[in-house]
């Protein structure tokens, strides 16, 4: 620190204790980095002044310094963590709901005054140092900004989307990006990878990678939200007499009962055999039955049907008659 703590507070050696307190108070007001975040030189002034104040606020210690028994070294506070470092960061619990999406700027005038600031800052030129050994802020003459987001499109297999997976994207610059596909992701959903976008400007944070996921179709399964729909072919005998059959699900084959007398188009629900939803609850699998006749009708089947028709009358189109 400055070897003369009085000078750091803008005082002479003859200052009273009240004057020291007053001088420091003024510096807190004008130079505390948390209260003056746009002033890049504030931090240097504040650190010097607070170290000086720590030394001089105690009359006894001040007297020892004045007598030359102690020097001003070793007085700096161990390590500063200004609130500024956290205050504007993503996820600051004291920030509430902010941002462009929620509230945004009330009108264009606000925006324009911000831009004025930005343009003035750029016009002032870069490379101005803000004081020896101290990090610069966001003031005039310097420009720090978040890097831009990068957009990607990722094709994901149906099963990978249902069950979750890890994928690699190869970027135009040859680097790869590992993407964790959360289970149950839906077609068109966008994943955000923080800090994987373009690098920031100055000390700005890098942007994010935004990955829009496209889910491929499956030959058997169809997604309906967290439910899975499947068309299940059954034989005519199974439809008439009922049966126990193996049904494919996203987590393997499962036995299912076909009730006696099931028609084509009937939908059976297999509870909890769908996709794991966001709430941690699995959807269902909806099985639509479709009666499939043998490719060739043999005489035995034909005879059997003829016999049945002689004694029974059933008109499935009865409801359609006008």
């Amino acid at each position, binding site marked *: 620190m400055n070897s003369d703590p009085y000078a750091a507070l803008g005082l002479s050696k003859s200052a009273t204790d009240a004057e020291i307190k007053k001088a420091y108070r003024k510096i807190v007001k004008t130079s505390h980095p948390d209260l003056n975040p746009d002033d890049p030189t504030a931090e240097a002034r504040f650190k010097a002044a607070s170290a000086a104040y720590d030394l001089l606020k105690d009359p006894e210690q001040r007297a020892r310094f004045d007598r030359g028994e102690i020097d001003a070294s070793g007085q700096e506070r161990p390590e500063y963590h200004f609130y500024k470092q956290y205050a504007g960061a993503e996820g600051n619990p004291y920030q509430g709901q902010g941002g*462009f999406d929620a509230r945004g700027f009330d009108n264009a005038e606000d925006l324009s005054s911000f831009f004025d600031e930005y343009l003035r800052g750029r016009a002032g030129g870069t490379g101005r140092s803000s004081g020896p050994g101290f990090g610069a802020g966001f003031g005039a003459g310097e420009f720090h900004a978040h890097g831009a987001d990068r957009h990607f499109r990722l094709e994901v297999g149906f099963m990978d989307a249902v069950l979750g997976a890890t994928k690699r994207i190869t970027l135009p610059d040859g680097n790869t990006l590992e993407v964790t596909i959360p289970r149950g992701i839906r077609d068109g959903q966008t994943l955000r990878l923080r800090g994987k976008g373009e690098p920031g400007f100055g000390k700005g944070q890098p942007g994010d990678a935004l990955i829009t996921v496209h889910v491929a179709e499956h030959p058997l399964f169809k997604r309906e939200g967290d439910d899975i729909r499947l068309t299940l072919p059954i034989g005519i005998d199974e439809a008439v007499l009922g049966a126990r059959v193996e049904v494919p699900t996203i987590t393997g084959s499962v036995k299912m009962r076909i009730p006696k007398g099931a028609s084509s188009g009937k939908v059976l629900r297999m509870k909890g055999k769908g996709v794991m939803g966001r709430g941690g609850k699995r959807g269902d699998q909806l099985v639509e039955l479709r009666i499939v006749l043998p490719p060739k009708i043999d005489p035995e089947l034909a005879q059997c049907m003829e016999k049945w028709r002689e004694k029974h009358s059933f008109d499935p189109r009865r409801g359609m008659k006008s």
Partner: protein
Amino acid sequence: MSRIYTEREVIARVPGLSGARLLRFIEAEIVLPIRRVPEPGFRAVDLARLGLACELADQFDLEGEALALVLSLVDQLHARRAELRRLLGAVAAQPPEVRAQIAAALARGRPD
């Protein structure tokens, strides 16, 4: 980064913070600890915020709601700055001609 500090660690690390003052700050919701049984836990952001709160309390005799009000203004200031950074990042990512157009539009709208 995600380290959690105990009440005792917080008091040892933040200059000017006493147990009684920490309790008052928690009551005034100047700082919101992560409630943890059997005692409250604090994040790095809480320590930095407590440092600022102590400085304001010591130098300007701010306590309770007055201190909470000042910190809320500080929060708003930093929120707007974070938004501005995002906005500037978006502008900076535009092609030079778009940036020039934005600059020209701003120059036109500037009051003399």
